[in-house]
């Protein structure tokens, strides 16, 4: 029995060592790889300066075209919209800008029904997992938003195993082979094409009375003297409870409501996402109504 226990224990120790080695190897690959995800792209922008930075969900990622802004205003612009982002994610990205010393003279934050949504983006979480121990902001993000935090933080390789559908050996090989993705083309802008038939949308009836995360964002902006502007990106006209954005306007400071700025259904890929033509159209509206207007008054 003693021999058996010793043998099994040695295999357990070997397993732990393998897990440690794999964790180290995977993390090193992700840290040093050319960006294949948008979050890696964000990390690659350390110590860079931009005139405008847009934060938010896919409604930013698919709706704001930095190249057009640069062409029309001459300003360097970065689109940091992440798919399925909630306020928690936006707050984390906002803090990461400081952590990575990515400077934006003006920050635009897209806010809509996500004001009422709890939780965080699983897509962004996948992308952030390799870097969980890189800084306090990311570590805190997982601590507050993931039930697997203890495993992710203290058990080697657990974070990769639990997310093997995305962070797998194939992804490691592709990173080592420096295979590119189209995630970083267009300074963070990712176009959607075509238009779907279903343009129905239902916004929440009421605004949540309290939102701790939003309050934290406001405090953080004030404390760090960030020049921040909030806006709501266009929704398709068929939406229910569209007055929600009016309620949002009363709650959110320095807020531009573009929820009804685009009326043509053909410019939407679906009820809340503009297609490429829609993004061109809306970026133009945004430039004229916010960026150039402000510029003229400066």
């Amino acid at each position, binding site marked *: *029995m003693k*021999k*058996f226990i010793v*043998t*099994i224990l040695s*295999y357990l120790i*070997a*397993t732990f060592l*393998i*897990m440690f080695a*794999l964790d180290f190897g995977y993390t090193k690959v992700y840290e040093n790889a050319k960006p294949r995800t948008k979050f890696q792209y964000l990390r690659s922008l350390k110590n860079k300066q931009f005139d405008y930075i847009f934060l938010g969900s896919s409604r930013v990622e698919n709706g704001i075209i930095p190249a057009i802004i640069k062409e029309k205003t001459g300003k360097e612009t970065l689109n940091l919209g992440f798919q399925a982002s909630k306020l928690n994610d936006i707050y984390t990205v906002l803090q990461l800008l400081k952590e990575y010393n990515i400077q934006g003279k003006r920050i635009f934050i897209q806010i809509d029904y996500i004001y009422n949504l709890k939780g965080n983006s699983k897509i962004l979480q996948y992308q952030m997992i390799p870097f969980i121990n890189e800084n306090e902001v990311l570590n805190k993000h997982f601590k507050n938003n993931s039930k697997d935090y203890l495993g992710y933080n203290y058990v080697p*390789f657990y974070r990769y*195993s*639990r*997310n*093997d*559908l*995305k962070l*797998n*050996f*194939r992804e490691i090989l592709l990173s080592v082979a420096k295979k590119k993705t189209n995630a970083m083309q267009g300074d963070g802008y990712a176009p959607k094409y075509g238009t779907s038939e279903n343009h129905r949308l239902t916004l929440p009836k009421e605004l949540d009375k309290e939102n701790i995360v939003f309050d934290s964002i406001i405090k953080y902006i004030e404390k760090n003297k960030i020049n921040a502007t909030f806006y709501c990106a266009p929704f398709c006209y068929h939406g229910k409870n569209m007055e929600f954005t009016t309620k949002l306007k009363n709650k959110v400071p320095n807020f531009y409501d573009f929820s009804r700025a685009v009326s043509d259904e053909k410019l939407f890929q679906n009820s809340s996402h503009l297609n490429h033509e829609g993004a061109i159209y809306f970026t133009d509206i945004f430039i004229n109504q916010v960026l150039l207007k402000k510029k003229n008054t400066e």
Partner: protein
Amino acid sequence: MLFNSISYLIFLPIVFAIYWMLNSRNLKWQNLFLLTASYFFYACWDWRFLFLLMFSTGLDYFTGIKMFEAKSVKLKKFWFFASIFINVGFLGVFKYYNFFIESFEDLLTNFGVTSHFWTLKIILPVGISFYTFHGLSYVIDIYYNRIKPEKNIVDYSLFVSYFPLLVAGPIERATHLLPQIKKKRVFNYENAMEGFYQILWGLFKKLVIADSCAVYANEIFDNHQSMNSISLLLGAVYFSFQIYGDFSGYSDIALGTSKLFGIDLLRNFNYPYFSRDIAEFWRRWHISLSTWFRDYLYIPLGGSKGGMTTKIRNTFIIFLVSGFWHGANWTFIIWGLLNAMFFLPLLITNNNRNNISIVAEGKMFPTIKEFFSILLTFTITTFAWIFFRSNTVSQAIEFIKNIFKFDFKGGFQYLTFDRYTIELVFLLFLFLFIEWISRERVHPVFGKFKSLKVIAIITMILIFGVFSEAKEFIYFQF
């Protein structure tokens, strides 16, 4: 509690440690503890069904003794049929009632009669098909005077409810398992290590092969209407490996676990995908069920005695019942019938026992004839699996029709998924290679460099295993 879960990883060492600590006391305590652990293991799914398991156990224990003590043949028959009726009745109610009712409703609808009968809204108790068959074999063996009834209720209950085999087999025989339960077990290092190696290889089959293939097989079967021929073909092949990795992986973990407790269970799989004909396949696939049907159905029906018509009739009955045993769905029945049809030419030409030995025994490569025989057997088996996997017969037919459209537009559609692309095919070839070189053994951890092989398997499980969602074993639903 799944074999591939964290809770089992905690449960097993605790049970193992207490079990061997009790060894110095006496066998009674050891068996009682193992029974308690087994009931706890079962109750982790649904404690309410534990009472059904206990009732089924009590019934067979009681009727077994009553049959043995019966003073007349009539009384013996009474207890025998009472046990069979109640056992099969439970199985019928829980597993087949809704199927028969719904099929009857469909039939009436075809005649223009609208009906709505009462259906059961309950889940199928885990392992009911397996523990019912345990009990049935015990009762039948007593009835035919092959064994004497077990008087010790704890030992008998352990025979039925022993946790490594409780939920998905192997289907044990009283003649094989009960003597081991009644004998004092002594810890044996070599045997325990064999158990460990087998558990490890079972985990590899489940986590790496079955669950990886499941990602694609599920996607392809669920979206078969929009898939081209090559993708559908791959979907069918992936399912073949999924079900093999899943069930043989489960069996390996069960057998390995049992070895840790000094108890040998019946071998359930013996490299079935290297079979040279369908008869050999059925001697190597789910062996404990095949032999159960052979001993308790085929032989009592007359077996191979009598004319060719009897043989054919019995073969069809066996495969039909086998299909139906797997689930209350026409897809399983057709799967059984297809296998019977594949078996038929071998039976008629008396070639069903041609391939008894291990293929290419002692050689590295098979002959060309052997290779193509293996390929043909795998192809027809995979064809039948399409029915097994499909939700309905019409889905299976549509799936097969679309394969034979020979539409290759879009190439490998499954390449769009995130996890693996063509790498999975390479992984399957690697798996087949390891199985091929191990085909004369129980698992690949043998010979020199065992530690290195163990490390390699652990590393591969960590790198290629699917951990993002613990997937249930397919055979739990049966």
